């Protein structure tokens, strides 16, 4: 790599395609660090990691769906519903584990419904999950009339530790996030489940002919997505100390952005666990850095959109260049 002449041009393009997004992220990071006094401090970096933990976990679930070639539009609204379910069960039973179980069951149920409609009934995933998202939105409004549910003072300690606690200086959600990142990378790259999911994303018909139960695996990806939303929603509710029916809605657009960024990195056009982690870092870093610079929130949306389009365009252009050469 020292002598540029020895590097094949194709390899350079391939390198750019796989790591260009990471280099871009490093560039943005450096700019923030230089421009903002408060950005590159230990406290802010730990806060950034805590902020990104929920988005990362949701996007990791989305990675499964997108890896199998699907799409899940219901995640934002589902997060809100699970906030409420978690809080309601927690308050009425005072049992954190029961509440957690209810939240995960609720997420899995939404995933089951999504997956059944998409994989077994055969509706287009975009429309079906969008409609389910709408139903979920209606349900949570019906339950709460739009009002938040506040935790009373005597809830179990662990229920606030999940979102607010620290291990040493590290926020606990960050530890959870890292655990899930490692778990997902492992499952997607090393196990039959991951292999089959990407095979379905790569060619669903060939996967069917190869004996893979395509419907069942697609259903599984939606259930995983639902469960990951549940885990993120529990962290969110715990952190806020209250269940906000509308909290978590921004996860939808951010998770989509993260997974598209993820497809531009490392893999061959499919989202990967590590790519999703880096993508979530980029999106969260933009949110955090722009806030640090006192950029109004509406301008943050514009910037995020531009960055995502930029990243995807570059990776598509580079991929095309590679294909033509081969």
């Amino acid at each position, binding site marked *: 790599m020292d002598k540029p002449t020895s590097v094949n041009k194709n390899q350079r393009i391939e390198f750019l395609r796989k790591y260009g997004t990471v280099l871009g992220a490093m560039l943005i990071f450096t700019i923030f660090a230089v421009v903002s006094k408060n950005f590159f401090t230990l406290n802010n970096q730990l806060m950034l990691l805590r902020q990104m933990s929920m988005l990362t976990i949701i996007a990791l679930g989305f990675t499964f769906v997108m890896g199998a070639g699907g799409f899940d539009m219901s995640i934002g609204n589902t997060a809100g519903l699970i906030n409420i379910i978690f809080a309601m069960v927690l308050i009425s039973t005072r049992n954190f584990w029961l509440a957690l179980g209810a939240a995960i069951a609720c997420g899995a149920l939404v995933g089951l419904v999504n997956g059944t409609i998409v994989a077994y009934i055969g509706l287009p995933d975009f429309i079906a999950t969008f409609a389910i998202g709408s139903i979920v939105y209606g349900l949570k409004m019906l339950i709460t009339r739009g009002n938040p549910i506040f935790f009373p003072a005597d809830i179990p300690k662990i229920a606030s530790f999940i979102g607010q606690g620290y291990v040493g200086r590290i926020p606990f959600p960050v530890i959870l996030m890292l655990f899930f990142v490692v778990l997902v990378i492992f499952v997607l790259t090393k196990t*039959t489940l991951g*292999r089959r999911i*990407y095979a379905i994303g*790569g*060619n669903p018909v060939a996967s069917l*002919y190869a004996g893979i*139960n395509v419907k069942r695996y697609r259903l599984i990806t939606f259930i995983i997505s639902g469960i990951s939303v549940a885990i993120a929603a529990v962290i969110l509710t715990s952190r806020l100390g209250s269940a906000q029916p509308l909290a978590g809605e921004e996860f939808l657009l951010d998770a989509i952005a993260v997974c598209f960024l993820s497809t531009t990195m490392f893999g*061959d056009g499919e989202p990967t666990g590590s790519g999703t982690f880096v993508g979530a870092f980029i999106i969260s870093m933009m949110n955090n850095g722009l806030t640090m610079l006192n950029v109004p929130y509406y301008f943050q949306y514009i910037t995020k959109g531009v960055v995502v389009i930029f990243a995807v365009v570059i990776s598509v252009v580079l991929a095309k260049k590679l294909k033509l050469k081969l």
Partner: protein
Amino acid sequence: MLGEEVRKDTDLMLSTENVGKEFNGVWVLKDIHFQLKKGEIHALVGENGAGKSTFIKILSGVYKPSAGSVFLEGKPVDFHSVTDSEALGIRTVHQEVNLVPYFKVYENIFIGAERKKKIGGMAIVDSKRMKKEATKVIKDLGIDFDVSSPTLLLNASMKRIVEISKVLVHNPQIVIFDEPTTSLGEEERKNLLQIIKGLKERGLTIMYISHNLEEVMEIADRITVFRDGNQVGTMEKSEATTGKIISMMIGHDNYKHYCRVDKYYCEDVYLSIKNLTTDKLKAVNLNICKGEMVGIAGVVGAGKTEIAKAVFGLDKIESGSIEVMGKPYVPSPENAIRHKIALVPEERQAEGLVPNYCVSKNISLTYLKKYANRAGLINRVLEIETAQAYIDKMGIKCTGPLQTIKFLSGGNQQKAILSRWLNGDFDIGIFDEPTKGIDVKAKEDIYSFLEDLAEQGKAVVVLSSYLPELMSLCDRIIVVRDGRIIGEYTPQQPNAEEKIMHAMLGGGA
């Protein structure tokens, strides 16, 4: 024509001098001196990877040659894009059909070149004129057809005609046909060849690329053979024979025509299909035995693939039943694999490959569990080693188990798909058009591979619309037409080929 020595150049429509193409330091095409005479049908043949496609892409402006030059009617031309070559009257009929299913036929024919008329200063689409012109173009091909029909309902051969019409409305001088008879049945193939001959009579110059040497011998005036990016030779049809072309293509003379001795006997019935009726099949009865090689012949759309699909649970069964080794069997892909049935589908790209996966991941896909422990953790080392063993055994040309499969040639992709099934020790193998679109050498390899399987005692079922293949491979040949089994033949019986052909085509009966 040979007597006219004077002004040699004037009868040349297109020629190339020293044309070559290099990718990353590798010359995939070298020193091509190709001459296309006005009004001829010039066939270009060669194995996959011989450089045919690259050459066509240079002529049609997709690639710029890395060396040499292209001349059109004696004048050097420099194409920067497909638009440039099209402007000079060079058009290609591609191998794949590319039509908008919801468009009417004439709308597809004029796609991107809509005829317009002005009403009040506004240009609007002139459907009437397009219909008229499209009708004429199709009629000139000798076909009577309503151009307002929806494209969706056309059969494969009619779609092909629409593709050709799409090119003809531009009044091209040179038409390049890239494997135009792929996915057509015997009769449709013959019709298409007639149509192409008709184009020649109308003065068009034609380049014809095909794997099918019978076709080439039937249609071409001259034949050029490519091998490994070199032009091995160009000959008049009168001096060409199939054997000669093949030896030029593969570079040596050991072309072997497989012919099995009659050793058909039925001990154990492996697969038994009883009164099977689906959307496309009508009361099909079929027994497949241990160690035999059965051919199922039929034109495209006759129901061959549908039998395979029904066994694999991909088409809904309306009535009838299937038994495997004498036991009832409920069709589904998973169940088929559990019952040791393998299916190598016809559409390699659409139904066989995971294009972005490497060779090893494609090979392990079906029997992935063999490489994984109970928790589902894949033993990647074992997987790669096994893939390497198959690469060696099957002679798959690739850079290694980690090469992405989409970059392999068709024949090598097919060998990888076959390896995928070999992994699992199947008893009944169904091979749907196993040599479709692959080169001669790979075909030979696959034939001998299929024979080995039968030797080992597996039941081998080959579905094909290419009769010579079945004649040389199979112990018996079952003919399917319109979803019914209408006869069974052995290749040894007198006049078998004529009889089978007659049965396949219906022969007016």
